[in-house]
């Protein structure tokens, strides 16, 4: 399906925003200004953006992972609010009490990054049940890593979604490593075949190819919106950083990440595709690059300047009302 100029620009902006957000966080993390753990999404941008560009705020949901910044940005969560949250500041999207691994924005249909591997798929099928009941045509998309693919919750969610014909797109991101262990060792058989075993239509695509992800997602979302039940996509993904920042990556051959950045960069791939087809010009994307850089610069500066959460907030929002 041919995308409009505006759609292409929007997709590029989102992908570039994720990349700059993550690369800048790496710099800041090394400088010691970011608390907690960081799991960066660099390299996988085309997957989040390829599907989320086709989702709506009001009726469509995503469930995310510990590596969730890219999913949040793709679903439209405020970048500055996210940065403040990662810095655990008062005006972060979760008031500083969630941090990197729990960024959520329910108004955007973003059900939360999730620090429990395999935690989100059961929740996402619940959102799909809500969509089916209250928001006709709505769809829910859990993002699932190759590591999470081995959790029972994922098998349970796929079975339940298939049995109840829920509008779900299971978006697997197989980036080749569950923490420090290769998928080739830890994930038996194929993820696509696992989904098919539950009568869930499934395809495998190259996650560095925005257009391949977008097309697979388009078909899966259409099935869900039409009430035809769940689908699954296994996107082959490329994790440019380690499991977390600070991971020495002893499990990887010395040049692996360098080679991936050369050969499997979804942003480079996108740029050459759209310029070769004369859909966009380099200048269009260069301009976006500059705007995104400025946005991330502002986001970091504002996050650093934002106050810490009020002490009283420690005790707040455990319950709606404790009575």
């Amino acid at each position: 399906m041919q995308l409009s100029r505006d759609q292409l620009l929007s997709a590029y902006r989102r992908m570039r925003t994720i990349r700059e957000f993550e690369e800048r966080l790496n710099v800041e993390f090394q400088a010691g200004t970011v608390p907690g753990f960081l799991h960066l999404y660099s390299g996988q941008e085309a997957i989040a953006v390829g599907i989320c560009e086709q989702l709506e705020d009001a009726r469509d949901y995503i469930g995310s992972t510990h590596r969730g910044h890219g999913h949040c940005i793709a679903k439209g969560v405020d970048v500055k609010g996210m940065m403040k949250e990662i810095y655990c500041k008062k005006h972060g999207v979760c008031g500083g009490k969630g941090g990197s691994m729990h960024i959520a924005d329910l108004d955007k249909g973003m059900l939360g990054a999730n620090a429990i591997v395999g935690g989100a798929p059961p929740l996402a099928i619940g959102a799909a049940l809500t969509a089916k009941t209250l928001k006709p045509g709505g769809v829910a998309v859990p993002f699932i890593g190759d590591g999470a693919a081995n959790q029972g919750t994922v098998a349970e969610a796929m079975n339940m979604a298939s049995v109840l014909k829920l509008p779900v797109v299971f978006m697997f991101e197989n980036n080749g490593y569950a923490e420090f262990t290769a998928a080739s060792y830890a994930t038996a058989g194929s993820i696509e075949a696992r989904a098919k075993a539950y009568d869930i239509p499934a395809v495998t695509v190259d996650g560095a190819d925005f257009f391949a992800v977008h097309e697979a997602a388009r078909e899966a979302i259409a099935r869900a919106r039409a009430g035809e039940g769940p689908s699954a996509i296994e996107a082959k993904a490329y994790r440019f950083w380690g499991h977390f920042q600070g991971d020495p990556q002893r499990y990887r051959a010395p040049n692996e990440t360098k080679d991936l950045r050369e050969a499997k960069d979804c942003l480079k791939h996108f740029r050459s595709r759209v310029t070769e087809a004369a859909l966009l010009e380099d200048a269009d994307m260069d301009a976006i690059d500059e705007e995104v850089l400025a946005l991330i610069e502002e986001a970091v500066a504002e996050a650093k300047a934002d106050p810490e959460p009020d002490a009283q907030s420690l005790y707040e929002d455990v319950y709606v009302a404790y009575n």
Partner: protein
Amino acid sequence: MSKKTYREAITEALRQEMEREERVIIVGEDVAGGAGGSAGGGEAAGGVMGLTAGLCTQFGRERVIDTPITESAIIGMAAGAALTGLRPVAELMFADFIGVCLDQVYNQAAKFRYMFGGKARTPLVVRTMIGAGMGAGPQHSQAIYPMLTAIPGLKVVVPSTPYDAKGLLIQAIRDDDPVIFCEHKGLLGSQGEVPDEPYTIPFGKAAITREGTDITLVGISRMAVLCNEVADRLKKDGISVEVIDVRTTSPLDAATILESVKKTGRLVAVDEANPMCSVASEIASIVASDAFEYLDAPVKKVTAPHTPVPAAPNLEALYLPTPDKIEVVIRDLMDF
């Protein structure tokens, strides 16, 4: 007002709330039963104990949803649905099964509101059966509410009468926080007066079921029934026992317990759970800490031992707190 069983009170609460509010749905294993069966697929069970009987027939399979045996997906799906606008009542058949879905309860549903900065509402009810006394053995008999009571973000309800079961369940369904509603299987057939119309009982308000001046008994779930029995028995011997039924372990009505102990000077907390980190332990701690100068005797607990629940009827009888065991402790304290 008419006489109803605990089981009937629960079914009535579910039916009335589903009639009132379309977003209330029921999910769980065999909550209707019969889906896909050779008998034609009609409602065939209404729950393993019949507590949801008739609801599928009345409200349809869209709102009374039979699931596979898949507790993580049941509780997780219900939590996700609650987070996005439905008001699900999930049935976790036996509380023991929390082991296979605890992540969805305590890392997910319980924490949404806090970790999302106060923006989430999770009106989820998990109905589940607790309790020993049926010879159901180590994995179908436990009283595991203390573990859940310890989790910030959850509310835990432990009704002991049909009246409380209905009012507390309606409150749970209308509540905007996740609630674990513990139904004691040994109480399902018990009878009591229950109003026909819907009503709520607020959480965190204990019931004083016997008034007395010599000693305070605090009971949880079926133990409150036992405490009443002991109080009635000892009245004949001139011992005036006050009985408090906590109704909810989270929130826990510490004020009512402390007020009573300040009057009586003695406390026995009776809990069917294992002794370590039990709700009885928490109650004993509160009283020792905040009413020490009023105490005329040590605070005491009567609980199950630190063992799993045995299947053998003779061993299970030894395992459970009984009126006799409670009476022995009371008489010791009266002589202290």
